């Protein structure tokens, strides 16, 4: 188990993001929505960092900023020592190579008209890197047969599709894997397979994992550090086990109490 003695890899400080609702009057500007209010966090190399929050908590906005898919209204994000905010896309190449994302719903994140071979190779092609035998190697890593390469996403089950999405994310040998609710759309019997696979890959490849979920019990299984978000702020952050055992913030306590558990009824 890697301790988080690693050097800071992602450093976000005082991030804010304000969206504007469409204007409803000629004389007044549209209402401002503060999606993120002064969020700071540090993810160290080798760490498994969880972000927990409900819809509207700002976790998706934070994720988009960390992946440079959106620009903050104020604040800064340093990735591996380099500032990534305010850069044009052509100067984000190093980030696209080092940080890859697995989305919640593989049905909508994989192009239905592309074969698995092309889907998995696409990040490499986009970065102008040789593909070679990498696809077969990746499919093997995520536990899919080599024959999967010639098929289309719809020919796979939900769990297998998520394996394809993981293979695709790993293609450019990233340092950081960002997983946005990767098991929320999966059946319980398949969820364990994907969580085990993620844990194995993070270990084997020495990845840093940023894992976003609405479910604190899943985060507790996967991550060592967690940030709990509510209303665009991080209300509590620290070691998962400490927060699980002794939540200090009122919202974290509400969240923990609301999660139904089997143990509570048996």
């Amino acid at each position, binding site marked *: *188990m890697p301790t988080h003695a690693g050097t800071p890899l992602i450093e976000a400080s005082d991030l804010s993001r304000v969206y504007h609702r469409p204007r409803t009057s000629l004389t007044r500007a549209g209402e401002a929505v503060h999606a993120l209010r002064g969020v700071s966090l540090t993810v160290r190399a080798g760490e498994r960092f969880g972000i927990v929050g*409900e819809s509207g908590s700002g976790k998706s906005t934070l994720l988009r900023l960390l992946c440079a898919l959106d620009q903050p209204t104020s604040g800064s994000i340093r990735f591996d020592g380099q500032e990534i905010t305010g850069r044009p896309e052509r100067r984000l190449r190093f980030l696209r190579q080092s940080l890859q994302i697995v989305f919640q719903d593989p049905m909508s994140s994989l192009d239905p008209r592309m074969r698995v071979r092309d889907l998995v190779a696409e990040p490499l092609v986009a970065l102008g890197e040789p593909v070679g035998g990498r696809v077969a190697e990746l499919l093997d890593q995520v536990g899919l047969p080599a024959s999967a390469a010639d098929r289309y996403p719809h020919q796979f089950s939900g769990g297998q599709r998520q394996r394809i999405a993981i293979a695709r994310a790993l293609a450019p040998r990233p340092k950081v894997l960002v997983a946005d609710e990767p098991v929320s759309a999966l059946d*319980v019997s398949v969820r*364990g397979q994907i969580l085990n696979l993620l844990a194995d890959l993070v270990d084997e490849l020495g990845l840093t994992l940023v894992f976003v979920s609405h479910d604190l019990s899943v985060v507790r*299984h996967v991550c*060592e550090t967690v940030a709990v978000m509510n209303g665009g702020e991080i209300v509590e952050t620290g070691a998962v086990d400490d927060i699980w055992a002794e939540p200090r913030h009122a919202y974290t306590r*509400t969240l923990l109490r609301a999660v*139904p558990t*089997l143990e509570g*009824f048996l």
Partner: protein
Amino acid sequence: MLSVEGLTVRAGSVELVRDVSFEIGPGERVGLIGESGSGKSLTALSLMGLLPEGVTAAGAARLGERDLVGVPERRLKALRGQDVSMVFQEPMTALNPLMRVGAQVTEVMTLHGRPAGQARARAVELLGRVRLPQPEQVARAYPHQLSGGQRQRVMLAIALANEPGLLICDEPTTALDVTVQKQMLDLIAEVAPALLFITHDLAVVASVCERVLVMYGGRVVESGPIREVFGNPRHRYTEGLLAASRLTPRGTRLPVIAGSVPAAGQFPDGCVFTNRCPHATPACEQEPALTGEGHAHACRHPADRG
């Protein structure tokens, strides 16, 4: 209250639900759990007479004195929303976006013969009963002006409008946040007459229901009181599902069920779980019957008690 005998649902030659039988007593809350493709939603839809085109149900389902399966649409229309009603998973698609919420609650009552004025007053009362704050104002709102949790409460108000004998909820909280889910579950448990609660989430079913039916591959593979089934599972599928639901501490392997749920019509013959079961033997090629009083299971090599 509700008694289902040998319910079978087919799409052409493919059997999607096979020989499902169960009963729900007055005031009883029964859970139906299963993963996607297990046939749980089809079971519910066949009770409501809402099966999609080309899908047919056979067998018998009786609500009190009245038949639910194999009766003409005209008769079903009179029952639906009156004697049996349903709350769906996604309130945004189940509600009419062009109609005010109050009018949608009123509609289900006027359709079943209640005078309009009376129905309108009762709609506001119902919105209050599902604990929507300021029900008079909510009644004038359109669905998009409400949050997901509020919309689901409106669905519940519609379902309860005619005091049905049976409420069917199909994954009513899956689209909701956990804190909202808890309030909704508490509310459903409080207001439901007899309840058939469909979900894939074992912990959710444990918090709402007294009895549970476990479905896999279109069949009920285990049934009984929640405490018994979850505390002492007999069928190997139930056992695997329970193990997979418990998230162990970090750094440990999660127990898993091998493979994935087959597509409809591709389940093995005999016991539907054989191709994923670590205990399967050639004997499992013969379909096991659901046996046992109270706590029943359909497995040739059941897990040990204790």
